[in-house]
């Protein structure tokens, strides 16, 4: 068929030596990174290869690495976009420390990623992109492919551009259009290399390019050409097989943290039987939650792009007053701006979720990079005594459960709740076993109805939460506000004793949520041991992997990962005390660390990183070893 003609001719194969004869080597896992210019479509290639690998039954973890928000000129280091995938036949928890395979579409992509590679890694480059002008843009004085600087790697120089052009010959596309198909060629090639069926990508292309048949054809050809090239070229002595992992059965789907967050909120609203309202102002890396929820209008979901973060949270408070499931989403800078309104929600006791997709700070910081330094501002970032529950997600798919749980608690306790994720969870993807909607925890919503003896601040004996009395209910007309107000009636009150009662009651209400927190799970030595590694949020992967490895080395190391950060689990203190040492791993300067030290007076110490990058497993491993020696 014409498609295969091109590559076939492009890489003439030694006579009478059919491709089928190539060997299959085996690997139990592979860490591969696709890198290129922002315009090269590496995110797409990476995502599709992830899907193929997931469909092939591997366990997977991914790490996209976007350039800064500013669009850099093509070919420069600042413009490099990367996507890393770790696919394995065993359970894995991280995208991997060091890529064993790098696809570099231009010199900048090579230069930007070289430092991260494993020794003797495989590097595949688009030979034709290695031009003098591109060297200059990337800041290379001479050609890295020839100056010996890559000697300790296995370099494959492939004429991706030419081969793609050949494959698309006759379609009458302009160079730019052809150029933009290179990622599919590469995807095809890699798919062959790891024996991935390309059908799923084919069908994905079909509906992606439904409206533009010529582009559909072009991309298909490029994909096939790449696949056939792998099969026919002599460059690759063998392909590799990564056997399926033994993973929990069920229906899977690949999901990013932001999508999971959006779905979690939606699911909660559906279960609560109330409309969802999102009041938000765009900010990286939170914006995609707004984007995704705005496509669920029929559920119904209201999305309101406000004039700023303050209006975002305030509109949500208004919606909560009216009985909607009220959400606001943001990142660091927006957290400051929402603080005053969150304090109002604390005082009037209305349900509200503030999702903070943490990014590297302080101030504008590094908007596209992850960090975990907003924990204490979630705890204390409001004037006065203003306690708010905090829940943090550990993995992309965990964002679904945490978003859902945040809504459940907000409604049950009539309180604002913080949901903390970060830029890495937001954009990172992992396979997710689809939950059965019927099996999700119920979220009962009962609006006050009966005027008889109605008091807006009378409380449920167990939860201490007040009734949700929404406008439109005859006979329940009442006023709420931010001034100190009287117990039960909510009328303005300056009584000293009443003020203390109210402040302490709200504090007790939030502390009481601990009742609901499941017993702390210890991965490792249940009855205690030498070292406990304590974490929260997106550090889950590297911590769990490192602890697994440590235990593999027969070290007495265990792992506890917190989902509930305020209140803390009631059994946490005794759990921590079962270990001789407690190390708190965080992408900040030690925030959970401060909390547990103050709470339990345990001399815990920190393992911290503030580089806008996730921990490497090796970094945690080293600290584990050092602390076991010390």
């Amino acid at each position: 068929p014409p498609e295969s003609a091109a590559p076939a001719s492009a890489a003439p194969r030694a006579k009478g030596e059919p491709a089928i004869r190539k060997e299959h080597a085996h690997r139990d896992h592979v860490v591969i990174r696709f890198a290129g210019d922002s315009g090269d479509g590496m995110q797409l290639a990476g995502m599709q290869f992830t899907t193929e690998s997931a469909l092939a039954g591997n366990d997977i973890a991914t790490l996209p690495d976007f350039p800064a928000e500013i669009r850099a000129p093509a070919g420069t280091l600042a413009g490099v976009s990367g996507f890393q995938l770790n696919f394995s036949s065993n359970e894995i928890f991280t995208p991997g420390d060091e890529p064993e395979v790098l696809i570099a579409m231009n010199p900048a992509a090579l230069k930007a990623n070289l430092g991260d590679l494993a020794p003797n890694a495989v590097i595949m480059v688009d030979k034709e992109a290695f031009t003098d002008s591109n060297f200059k843009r990337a800041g290379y004085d001479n050609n890295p492919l020839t100056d010996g600087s890559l000697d300790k790697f296995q370099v494959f120089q492939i004429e991706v551009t030419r081969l793609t052009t050949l494959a698309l010959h006759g379609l009458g596309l302009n160079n730019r259009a052809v150029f933009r198909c290179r990622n599919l060629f590469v995807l095809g090639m890699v798919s062959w290399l790891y024996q991935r069926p390309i059908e799923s990508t084919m069908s994905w292309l079909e509906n992606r390019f439904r409206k533009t048949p010529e582009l559909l054809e072009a991309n298909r050809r490029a994909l096939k050409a790449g696949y056939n090239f792998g099969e026919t070229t002599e460059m690759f002595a063998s392909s590799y097989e990564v056997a399926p992992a033994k993973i929990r059965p069920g229906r899977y789907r690949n999901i990013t943290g932001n999508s999971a967050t959006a779905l979690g909120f939606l699911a909660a609203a559906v279960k609560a039987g109330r409309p969802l309202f999102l009041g938000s102002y765009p900010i990286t890396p939170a914006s995609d939650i707004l984007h995704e929820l705005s496509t669920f209008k029929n559920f119904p979901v209201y999305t309101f792009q406000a004039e700023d973060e303050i209006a975002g949270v305030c509109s949500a408070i208004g919606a909560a007053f009216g009985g909607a499931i009220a959400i606001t989403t943001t990142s660091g800078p927006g957290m400051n701006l929402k603080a005053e309104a969150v304090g109002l929600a604390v005082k009037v006791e209305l349900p509200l979720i503030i999702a903070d997709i943490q990014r590297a700070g302080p101030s504008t910081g590094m908007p596209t990079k992850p960090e975990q330094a907003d924990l204490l501002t979630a705890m204390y970032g409001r004037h006065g005594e203003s306690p708010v529950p905090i829940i943090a997600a550990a993995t992309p798919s965990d964002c679904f459960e945490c978003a859902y749980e945040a809504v459940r608690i907000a409604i049950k306790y009539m309180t604002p709740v913080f949901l903390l994720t970060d830029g890495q969870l937001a954009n990172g993807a992992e396979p997710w076993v689809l939950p059965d909607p019927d099996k999700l925890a119920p979220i009962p919503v009962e609006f006050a109805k009966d005027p008889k003896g109605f008091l807006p601040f009378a409380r449920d004996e167990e939860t201490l939460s007040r009734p949700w009395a929404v406008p439109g209910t005859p006979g329940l007309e009442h006023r709420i506000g931010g001034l100190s107000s009287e117990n039960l009636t909510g009328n303005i009150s300056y009584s000293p004793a009443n003020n203390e009662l109210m402040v302490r009651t709200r504090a007790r209400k939030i502390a009481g949520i601990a009742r609901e927190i499941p017993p702390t799970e210890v991965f490792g030595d249940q009855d205690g041991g030498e070292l406990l590694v304590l974490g929260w949020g997106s550090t889950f992967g590297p911590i769990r992997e490192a602890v697994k490895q440590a235990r593999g080395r027969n070290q007495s190391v265990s792992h506890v990962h917190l989902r509930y950060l305020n209140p803390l689990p009631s059994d946490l203190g005794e759990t921590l005390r079962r270990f001789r040492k407690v190390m708190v791993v965080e992408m900040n300067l030690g925030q959970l660390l401060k909390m547990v030290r103050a709470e339990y007076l345990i001399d815990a110490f920190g393992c911290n990183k503030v580089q806008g990058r996730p921990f490497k497993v090796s970094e945690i491993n080293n600290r584990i070893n050092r602390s076991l020696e010390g």
Partner: protein
Amino acid sequence: MASALTRKDFISDQEVRWCPGCGDYAILAAVQKAMPEFGIPRENIVFISGIGCSSQFPYYMNTYGFHTIHGRAPAIATGLKVTRPDLDVWVVTGDGDGLSIGGNHLIHVLRRNVDLRILLFNNRIYGLTKGQYSPTSEVGKITKSTPLGSIDYPFSPIKVALGAHATFVARSIDVEQKHLGEMLKRSHDHRGAAFLEILQNCNIYNDGAFNDLSDKAIKADHQLVLEHGKPLIFGKNRDRGIRMNGMRPEVVTLGNGAGESDLVVHDEQNLSLAFMLANFETPMPSPVGVFYATERPTYDAAINRQLDDAKAKQGPGNLRTLLNRGDVWDVN
């Protein structure tokens, strides 16, 4: 049943705590008087305010009420109205709450045309914090924070609202109970964001700020009462009017060479005219009444229409289907 309501039904059980003689009492009275006429059940009415003396207002209305935080009432009201279009939502704010800290939310809610009635009590001072100048205070005002006189040029709330292209912009005066009642009715009947500036006397920190317009003896010479389709006439003897001189307005005395036919006829639908009127400064008279009124889709109606359309097209949302969307695979 709702129509059976009387003014009393709208008086809450909370003790009113404004200074004796405050203009806010008159406004409260006018609102409580007007409410029954609208024939809306109490439980469907919500008053939302920010912070300030004026913003104490909701406590005194026997409806649903939310005394929020400084300057944010329009944003909170937006979230409520959008999700609860069945409610009749009122915003009460002040010149500080609405134009100083809350200026941005105000112009955005007007731009979006959310179906709210917004009452801005303009006393040209910060009352609650005991007398600092406000964004509507005249230049040279001596206050606690400006012992040598203020130096910033004030906002005209009407001009700000027109600049944001609000769909309903009007002005009235606390003591003009009849006119105020009419303006409240017009505001209520308007579909969309109705912006009503109410000149209000703070007899403690800015007494007599609007004497020109409220003092029976002289007000007729300073008030220009706007009526749609009527020529712009004012004065104790209604003998003065507004005429265009090229592209600029001027005051003429009727009779000597100028007749009614020469005068500008008020047209509520002419935004530029409204702005010209809002721009009147002495010796021109101060207009009161409806400066501008037009129809434009309201934000709340539009967003709910989008939701309905989506539902009509895609059917009611189904969580299971949504979850299964896209590339899924089974592991057994």
